[in-house]
Structure formats: C-alpha cells, structure tokens
C-alpha cells in the first residue's frame, strides 16, 4: 500500500512518464528534461525524494493521466487542471484523467491551501506541457526521420508540415521511460502559446447537480457503521473526560461498541443518530480547565505576547514620527470566526491486515496520513488516505480530525466505520477558529501629506499579512505571538483579513487627517502603481463622486495585496439605519489583478463567494468563547451570509490574457479588501469608526450613542 517505485512503474504501464519539480523558489528554472530508463529507476532512484512531485503519464492509447496529491474543494482545481492540460497537450478532456488526493498513487505535492494550486500546480503544468510538446517533437523526429523543425504538434499528433501523411500519434511515442525536469511556475520563462479560456463548465458539474458526486459520507451506504466521539463542553486541549457511563450507552439497541479513550469516549452504532444517542447516554463529566477564563481578549493577548520577529525595519520611524506634524495612533481588535463548511468533517476508515484505508474529506491527504499514523502509533506506510471531493474546507479541513477519529474506531471494530462530525463538534470540538488579532498602528504624515513613518505591532500567531501596501520610508513592523490557550486554525484569507481590516481602516483615517479624499490619498501613497488602475476601476464601477454626501449613506474603498502578487481593490456603498443599527450593503464592487484567467466560470463563482465572506466577517460572523469553551455550538448561534444578504455585486479582472501573465489565484484575495471597504463606507455614512468586528446592530447602536 505505501507508495513505492514499483507503484510508479505500474503507473507508467509502458507509457511515457514525465515527472516535474514545480519549484516556486523564483529561480526561473525552465525545464530541461533529463531521461531515466526503467532500469535506472529500478536500481533505486527515487524521484519523489528529489522533489519531482508532479507526474503526468502519456499512455500508449494517447490518454493523459496527471497525478496530484491535492484535492478538489469546490475551488475548481479539477476544472483548472483539466482546462490547462487538455489545452496544452491538445487532448480532449475525456482522454484526460486526473488522479487526485490518493496517497498510494499520487505524489505529495503539498496541501490544498493558500490559493496556491492554480498558480503553482496549474501554471506549472502549462509550462511543463510546452516542454512535453518539444520533447515529443524531438522523439517524433527520430521515429519519422524528419528534422524536428519541420514537425508540428497538432491535436495529439506530430505532423510533418510538408507532408501531412507523415504523422505519428503521441501515444505511439510512449516507450516506458521517465523524463524529469524542474520548472519554476512563477519564473520569467514563458511558453510561446497564450492560454485561452474556453469557459468550460466545472469538472464535476453534472454530478453535483444530480446529487451523484460521491463525498466521503456517501461511500458504502447501508454497509458501514457510524462512529462518533463526544464533543467536550470545553476546548479539547484544556480538558479530559473524568467519568463516563459506558454501560448505559451499550444498552441502547443498535450500539455496537462504547469505549473510553485516554481523554475522550466514543461509540459505534448502526446509524448516525444512534451513535449520538449513545454519546448522550454516557452522561460524561469533564475536567474543568485549570486556566482562568478570558475576560477581555485584547488584554489576554497582550499579557501573553512575546516578540517573534521584526518583519520590516528601515529608516528611523521613531525620529520620523516624533517630527511628524500629524500622527495617528490606533488599535484594532478582531473576533474569533469559524469556517463552517456545510459538509462537516467526514471520514470513513477500514482496517485490513494491519493496514488502514481512510476515505477522507481533507485538504491535505498527506498531512492526514501523518496524523492517522501518529494517533494509531503505526507507520505511514500502513496508512492510505483517499482524498474525496471536499464539501467545503476553507482551512478547517487542512488536517481534519475526523480522519484519525475514524481510524481509531475502525481499529477496534471489525467493519467499516464512518465518522461524520455533528455540527456541534464541528463548531466547538476543536477550537480551530480564525484567530482574534490585536494590531497597534501609528503613522505620521509628512508635509507632502504622504505617509512618512509608521510602526506596526501585530499580535497574531499565523504571521501573514505583515507587508505594507503603501510606500513608507520609515517603518518598523513587529510580529508577536499571542500564547492564547486555543490553537488557532486556518480560515480562508488567513491573517491577511485581520491585517487588512486594520491597515485599510487606518488608511482612511489618515486620509481624513491629511484632508484628502480616500481614493486620492491611496493613489499618492500606494507601494506599487499597479494599485491605481484597480482603484480607478472600482471608482468607476461604483460611480464615485468624492464630494457627494447623503445622510447615512456612504462609499468606502480598500486595497490589498495577497501572497505577494495578487492585488485587489474593493468599493462598497452602504446605508445605515440609525434607529435599528442595521447596515445595508447597497453595492459591492471588486477589481482584481490576478493575471491570466484559466476558467471564468469557476473564477467568478469563487470571487463573488469570497466577497460574501468579507461581508459576513465584517457584519456578523463571530464565535463567542471565554477561554474555556466556545458558546457558539450550532448554526443558530453563528450567522453566515445567506441569500438575503446578497447585494448587487460587480467584479472586473485586470491584466487577464496579457501575454506573459501567469495566473496568480483568487480564492482568498477578495475577502480581504471587502471587509475594510465596508468599514470605510460606514465611516462615510455615519462618521463612526469601528475598531472591532463584527458590526452587529447592537455594536452600531452603542457606537452611535457614544458618538452623540
């Protein structure tokens, strides 16, 4: 079951294999191919250990099979890879197979996170396939005895440009060898051909609309047992079970097993409801956490904070701030938030001959493999993870606990065990929330009303979003870790979202201090002129007139940079009901510079969704917790955006289809500027600046009252 050289040779199956190392180091590697014979591979060369973790096999029948350890989360990776490879090799989609997320026949090419799959794996394949075409032409030249420069690659065949009767299908060039190359998807090297988005439909579309796409929970219907662990009342890291009545659980009809583990207890039953009835019957009591409850998140974060790293330090910010005529010092604090995929964590496990197979809803099959092995104290070689289509991950399924839970229970049982997290366990069982963050920021303006100096102290564990989007000559940016008791989780947008909220709210306040229109102030100060067309596009979409003012109605802007190369801007128009505190988003516009668009259908759906994520985070998403437990334990306690929250949305993508522009990904970027553009629009509408989120009606009313 563990992946071996033998497996790889079986995968080649007499075809022609290409293995690539998509090195994203920026070294500009451009993919000279090196050949290995089967004999050399059999003698012990392990391509994976040399970083060749993207595999594409050309079959003798002309089919193309690509293997990636990443998974389809709904972000459209399967669509993107299918579009890119079928266009690059001119192979119809039905002859292209994508093998995804299976640790026994896919390489470990990294987790499916951070909007990285399109720009790294997808574009890596676009470049790699141009190398493959050249390689196939060279091989055909040898077979056809024609000079390579007379041959052209055309619809899966190599054809003599002078004599169309001389041709060979690419499958006929397969000879059982392996060619490897290192390619930098983000390097300067560009293939000559321009990618053209054909607007194909999402890869799983028909299965999705008919309910026939098989998610992990849909496997083996009627032929599996359901296993579940208790959801502790406290964060699981801070507690363990003290007493439990296993006999009461075992007496329930349909319960197969009820057991206590070291910190928790679990039950296996015929079906999901019975397994959960068994847990209820256990009447478990739990150790009360030893630490004090959190009274004030900001205070607690500051109390435990320790400097991790100075992220940026140039010029002399203290002197420049001291001499600045206009200094603005602010503190922003954010809330805990939860990913809330509609499919809760789900996995199915089966033990056979000391080996376990886990079909899992996971963003990272290889991380899941390591977790299952650790939890069961077995070797990774005894674990096979088969990544299933993910019913929403958004970070919480980066390393889902359900995979190891299912495996633990399957080991004690003699059948297949399905573990579907209850909604309560999903919310409160792990505490892997988007972290609460504190940001202190002081900026000083120069006489030219440009930002002359600033210091930024960011208290957060994740460490993203510390790069300034403005050109500031004197800067000190420091990152502190928070030592909060509950480990944070990954959530779409990561800490770019919290930083973006603080930085761009602050920018608007600086514009006011400077006496400049917020769009104009940004134009003068941005770190790269690439932001200016984005701001202009947003201003145009929202019909911006700087001087226009209407009671309780306002327009706000924000910009952001994500992952270094994705740039975005947002413009929002809001109205505020000052009697009820309700905020109504009238319009929401976004402009994004993300390079070449691979598939406009999945991109647009994703982008609009991400904008709605920004709206939800700004207006209502919040997990309430006290340092012992989360009080948010059901969908009734946590509001996510719904149909009635949808404002008119308008989006534009700049620099699409400009030659040489690689795709840069857009899964998270639009979340970020949406949050602060909403806050800035509210400031324009009612003159109240919010330093904490979310902007619930209660908070808005309180702020209005305090402002009076």
């Amino acid at each position, binding site marked *: 079951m563990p992946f071996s050289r033998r497996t790889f040779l079986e995968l080649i199956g007499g075809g022609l294999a290409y293995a690539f190392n998509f090195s994203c180091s920026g070294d500009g590697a451009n993919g000279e191919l090196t050949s290995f014979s089967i004999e050399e591979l059999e003698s012990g060369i392990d391509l994976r250990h040399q970083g060749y973790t993207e595999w594409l096999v050309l079959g003798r029948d002309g089919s193309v099979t690509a293997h990636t350890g990443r998974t389809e989360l709904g972000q459209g990776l399967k669509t993107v890879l299918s579009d890119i490879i079928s266009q690059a090799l001119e192979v119809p989609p039905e002859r292209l197979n994508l093998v995804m997320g299976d640790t026994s026949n896919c390489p470990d090419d990294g987790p499916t996170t951070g909007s990285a799959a399109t720009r790294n794996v997808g574009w890596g394949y676009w470049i790699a396939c141009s190398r493959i075409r050249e390689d196939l032409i060279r091989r055909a030249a040898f077979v056809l005895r024609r000079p390579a420069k007379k041959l052209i690659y055309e619809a899966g065949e190599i054809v003599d440009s002078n004599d169309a009767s001389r041709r060979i299908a690419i499958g006929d060039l397969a000879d059982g060898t392996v060619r490897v190359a290192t390619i930098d998807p983000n390097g300067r090297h560009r293939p000559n051909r321009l990618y053209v988005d054909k607007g194909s439909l999402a890869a799983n579309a028909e299965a999705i*609309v008919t309910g026939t796409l098989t998610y992990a929970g849909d496997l083996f219907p009627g032929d599996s047992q359901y296993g579940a662990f208790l959801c502790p009342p406290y964060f699981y890291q801070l507690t363990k079970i003290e007493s439990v009545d296993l006999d009461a659980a075992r007496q329930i009809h349909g319960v197969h097993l009820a057991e206590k583990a070291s910190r928790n207890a679990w039950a296996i039953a015929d079906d999901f409801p019975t397994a959960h009835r068994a847990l209820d019957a256990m009447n478990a009591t739990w150790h009360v956490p030893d630490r004090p409850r959190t009274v004030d998140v900001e205070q607690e974060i500051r109390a435990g904070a320790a400097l991790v790293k100075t992220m940026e330090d140039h010029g002399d910010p203290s002197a420049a701030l001291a001499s600045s005529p206009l200094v603005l010092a602010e503190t922003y604090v954010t809330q805990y938030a939860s990913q809330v995929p509609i499919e809760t964590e789900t996995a199915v496990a089966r033990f056979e001959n000391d080996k376990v197979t886990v079909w899992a809803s996971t963003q990272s099959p290889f991380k899941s493999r390591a977790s299952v092995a650790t939890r069961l104290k077995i070797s990774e070689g005894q674990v096979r993870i088969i990544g299933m289509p993910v019913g929403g991950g958004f970070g919480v399924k980066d390393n889902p606990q359900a995979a190891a839970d299912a495996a633990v229970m399957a080991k004690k049982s003699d059948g297949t065990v399905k573990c579907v997290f209850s*909604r309560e366990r999903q919310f409160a069982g792990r505490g892997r929330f988007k972290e609460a963050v504190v940001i202190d920021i002081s900026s000083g303006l120069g006489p030219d009303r440009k930002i002359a100096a600033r210091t930024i102290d960011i208290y957060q564990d994740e460490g993203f979003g510390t790069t300034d989007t403005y050109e500031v000559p004197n800067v000190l940016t420091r990152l502190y870790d928070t030592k909060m008791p509950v480990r944070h989780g990954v959530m779409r947008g990561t800490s770019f979202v919290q930083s973006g909220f603080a930085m761009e709210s602050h920018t608007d306040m600086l514009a006011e201090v400077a006496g400049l229109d917020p769009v104009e102030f940004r134009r003068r100060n941005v770190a790269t002129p690439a932001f200016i067309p984005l701001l202009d596009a947003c201003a145009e979409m929202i019909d911006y007139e700087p001087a226009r003012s209407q009671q309780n109605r306002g327009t706000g802007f924000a910009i952001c940079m994500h992952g270094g190369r994705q740039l975005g801007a947002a413009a929002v128009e809001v109205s505020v009901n000052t009697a009820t505190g309700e905020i109504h988003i009238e319009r929401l516009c976004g402009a994004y510079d993300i390079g070449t668009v691979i598939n406009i259908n999945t991109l647009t759906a994703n982008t609009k969704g991400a904008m709605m994520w920004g709206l939800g985070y700004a207006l209502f998403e919040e997990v309430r917790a006290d340092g012992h437990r989360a009080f948010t334990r059901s969908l009734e306690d946590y509001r996510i955006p719904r*149909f009635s929250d949808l404002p008119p949305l308008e989006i534009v993508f700049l620099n699409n289809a400009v030659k040489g522009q690689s795709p840069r990904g857009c899964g998270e970027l639009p979340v970020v500027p949406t949050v602060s553009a909403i806050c800035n629009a509210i400031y324009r509408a009612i003159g109240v600046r919010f330093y904490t989120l979310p902007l619930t009606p209660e908070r808005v009313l309180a702020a209005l009252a305090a402002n009076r």
Partner: protein
Amino acid sequence: MKKEINLNVNGTVSRVTADPEQSLLWVLRDVLKLTGTKFGCGEGACGACSVLIDGEVYRSCTVASSDVAGGEKIVTIEGLGSPGNLSKLQAAFMEHTAFGCGYCTPGMIVTATALLGANPSPSTEEIVSAMNDNLCRCASYPNIIEAIKDVAASPEKPGS
C-alpha cells in the same frame, strides 16, 4: 425499535425496516441509498437535506420517517433528474456554475423546484425569500439566483 414502514420515494413505494422515530434523512441515505440528500447540521438550519413531500419542501433531518409512511410522495434530488437526463433547473445550475463545492446543491435545487412549482415566474425578491433558509458557504447565491431566473423566464413546455 425498528419496524417495517412503506415509503413512497421518487415514484416507487419501498418497504423498509427502520426506526420510525429516526429522521427521514438517514433512512434515505443509508436504507434507500439515496445519498444525494446531504447531512449538514441535523437541526433544520442549513437546508442541505431538503426534500419534497407532496410538493412542499421539508428538512428531512427533522422529519420522522413514520410521519411520511402513509403514502406521502417524497421526492429527492435523484427523483428530479439524472446524468444525461437533467431537469431544467439542474441544467441551469450547471450552465451558471451555481455552486462551489456542490454539497448544498441538491438541497438548493430541491427548494428551487418547489418554488417554481408554486410560482412559475417568481421575482428576485420571491426567489430570495423562498431560498433564504438554504445556506451555501461557498456563497454561490448570485449564480443560483441567475439559474433560477433562467428557468423561470423560459416558457413551460406543455405537460412538463
């Protein structure tokens, strides 16, 4: 205790052995193996488990199977169309990429089917109001609305 009950699902009456108190959702998924109806919350709050019962939308996670064992016509996503034989709404959802991960999509299509059954040409406001209790974390809401409008606008074929 389990007992035998009759369920009329997608035009076929099946005699199934199930706990009558158990929710229809799990009977559909594990006994009848109709896994298009999804578990999302178990508390009727997300709509992923939506099914039609005599033409009206219900959350199958909150309906006891014994309550619909009297000949009520239950329709799941599988009863609306299948690959190669899509309903108009299914085709429109496909065409408009009205989904991200697709997990909530069966519930969305079932709910939209009931809406158009009751109101063949709803306004945007009526669509929002009818669909508002179905949650999509990928927030494919704008595309879902467009897909529904597309079908609403197209003239009905006689008898369809």
